[in-house]
């Protein structure tokens, strides 16, 4: 019996390391590796020529369940038109990049998938994505001038394009009409400043902690404090991505507005917010206002509480500069460099980027579309003042990113959380964030 147990123990020990599995492809192997890929692709082209398109099923990966039904519908049109079938897999955001990382190393990326600016540079610079430059040049449907230049820049590397813009997102302020009525306050307007928001939050807050005026999680940079920093004239990352702007006096000033909210308990505690996301707190009547990206609409238009009580409006402006910035970002449709169906993958990407599909994406209320002038239909896709999101496009700045975005963002979240818990002042946290970002940026450029 002892022996049997000992064996099982040994096995459990071995299991410990299993999660660390990674294929290694150090420098020496890379030439060998590319040889095989070339061979394989030659074989595949030969095969593809002999095959009818209708036999091809493209694997497609996305991370947003809310968008799946709408995209299915558009892709059904695509299948009708071309005979190429598609199969969508949804992997939630938190696991998407882990799965992609493993797939990329194992050479089994899906044929077509969503790309995000947080990760794009790593994938492009390592040759993981299919080079679309020539396809785009020869395309009748995709004309670069029809999409915001900044979104192309997210998915361009060394003069080549690796994705076609899918959508565009901006930020707006959501408020609970009932709570404003109860407090006898006028609803927020497009003329609000962040200080007006602070003022209103003070009045909306109930002393027993059953209701808070506002809500902003420590990790809500894109829909939260990035906008405030840019409004004030600060910055997050300089243009050549070598320096963090968190220690800029203007950035600190803007972040100190957040510190006021924390200190006066105008927002729920970090504990509460870590257990419940902002939309949950808003939709359960705990907070009166939140900032939300346009990608969240799908979650609100299906929610009875939001439908009955909520509406949205443009973000507040900065009191000093009068500027109202919306951080914006856009996803891209990319294909794997080693896909077996290069031409079919391009056809799908081209279709998804076409004016027709982009317009349908907006009409179905999936998201705002990247194709200029197609998003108006989106504003009517839900009974909220979605025009606010379109108006936010008047002054947009692209979401800051560099090669190691995810890494410095994660560290920043941890530092901002320390301000929420009172371990650091905002000024200290900002200086630490700048320091750790600068360190990581230096490392990026050392490569």
């Amino acid at each position, binding site marked *: 019996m002892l022996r049997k147990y000992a064996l099982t123990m040994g096995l459990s020990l071995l299991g410990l390391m299993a999660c*660390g599995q990674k294929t*290694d492809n150090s420098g020496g192997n890379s030439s060998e590796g590319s040889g095989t890929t070339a061979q394989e692709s030659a074989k595949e082209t030969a095969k593809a020529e002999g095959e009818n398109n209708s036999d091809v099923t493209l694997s497609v990966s996305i991370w947003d369940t809310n968008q799946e039904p709408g995209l299915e519908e558009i892709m059904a049109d695509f299948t009708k038109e071309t005979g190429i079938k598609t199969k969508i897999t949804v992997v939630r955001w938190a696991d998407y990049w882990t799965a992609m990382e493993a797939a990329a190393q194992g050479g089994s990326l899906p044929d077509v998938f969503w790309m995000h600016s947080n990760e794009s540079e790593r994938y492009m610079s390592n040759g993981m994505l299919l080079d679309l430059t020539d396809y785009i040049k020869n395309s009748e449907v995709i004309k670069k001038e029809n999409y915001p230049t900044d979104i192309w820049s997210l998915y361009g590397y060394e003069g080549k394009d690796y994705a076609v813009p899918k959508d565009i997102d901006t930020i707006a302020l959501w408020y609970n009409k009932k709570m404003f009525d109860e407090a006898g306050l006028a609803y927020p307007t497009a003329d609000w400043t962040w200080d007006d928001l602070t003022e209103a939050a003070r009045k909306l807050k109930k002393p027993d902690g059953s209701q808070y005026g506002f809500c902003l999680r420590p990790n809500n940079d894109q829909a939260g404090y990035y906008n405030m920093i840019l409004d004030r004239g600060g910055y997050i990352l300089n243009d050549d991505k070598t320096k963090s702007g968190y220690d800029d006096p203007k950035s600190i000033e803007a972040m100190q507005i957040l510190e006021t909210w924390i200190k006066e308990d105008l927002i729920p505690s970090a*504990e*509460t917010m870590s*257990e419940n996301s902002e939309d949950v707190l808003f939709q359960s009547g705990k907070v009166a206002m939140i900032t939300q990206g346009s990608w969240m609409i799908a979650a609100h238009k299906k929610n009875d509480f939001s439908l009955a009580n909520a509406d949205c409006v443009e973000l507040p402006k900065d009191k000093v500069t009068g500027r109202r910035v919306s951080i914006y970002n856009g996803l891209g449709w990319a294909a794997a460099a080693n896909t077996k169906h290069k031409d079919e993958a391009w056809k799908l990407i081209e279709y998804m980027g076409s004016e027709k599909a982009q317009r349908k994406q907006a009409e179905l209320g999936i998201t705002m579309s990247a194709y200029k002038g197609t998003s108006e239909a989106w504003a009517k896709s839900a009974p909220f003042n979605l025009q606010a999101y379109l108006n936010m496009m008047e002054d947009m700045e692209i979401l800051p990113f560099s090669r*190691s975005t995810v*890494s410095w963002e994660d560290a920043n979240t941890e530092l901002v959380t320390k301000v*929420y818990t009172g371990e650091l002042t905002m000024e200290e946290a900002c200086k630490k964030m700048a320091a750790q970002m600068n360190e990581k940026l230096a490392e990026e450029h050392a490569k």
Partner: protein
Amino acid sequence: MAEEKKKGFSFTSREKNEFIWGWLFILPTIIGLVVLNIIPIINTIYQSFFKTGDFGRGNIFVGLQNYQKVFADKEIWQALLNTVRYAIVEVPFSIAISLVLAVLLNKKIKGRSVYRTIIFLPMVAAPAAIAMVWRWLYNSDFGLLNHIFHSKINWVSSPSIAVYSIAVIGIWSILGYNMVLFLAGLQEIPGDYYEAAEIDGATGISSFFNITLPLLSPTIFFVLVTRVIASLQVFDLIYMVIDNTNPALGKTQSLVYLFYRYSFVNKNIGYGSTIVVVLLLLTLLVTVLQMIGQKKWVYYN
């Protein structure tokens, strides 16, 4: 054996046959072990000496640098402490409770198999699902626990108690598995021992301590060793329950959680690998100590 030795290395055809079939039978397991466990272990150890590049390309050899960094890193020591805290709560409680349950459910009572099934049920559910359910039970604003006790405790976001709250989930989900092992062990104990003890006037409690415990000690030892190993690897519960904005993150993240953060969030696979190698060595050490210690309290018939 002695006869075989005399013959030297010449096999009879039957021995040859048995040899081939023997290997054939264990081949699937061996292939699985090599591909899923042994190669990754070697790979992980190998990578711990490198500064790894994107997608496993362009690794740079850095010798022991990662190890020096690990030992100087306060975060790692804190994570080690968190892991040990988790293990110290999870292992003894899960063993003690499931042992009592096993003894009770080994008696002939009505609905015995129903109870056994209910207690084993958490084992069948996916750990992620279990964590989600508990996350809601623990929720400080909307959770059932605070609602029942009329309390306002931050079960999973207060740095001082979050790790123990997670250990409770761990205990709850492993009870059934431990219990089944103990039940199997209990059924190997001959009933005559208890009869004899009863005739000699032993009470239920004293026969538990004098008959059940010693005779069950090999099973207890097995459960102890495997639970210690498993609890040192705790990850999924923490990952599901603790968000990266959670103030308790620093005081709950385990070594494997840190490995995940370094390898998959920060894309520093070399450093992540180093953390797991350290954990492997630690686990080996603890297991060896237990193997030595067992001589004092485990009785094999």
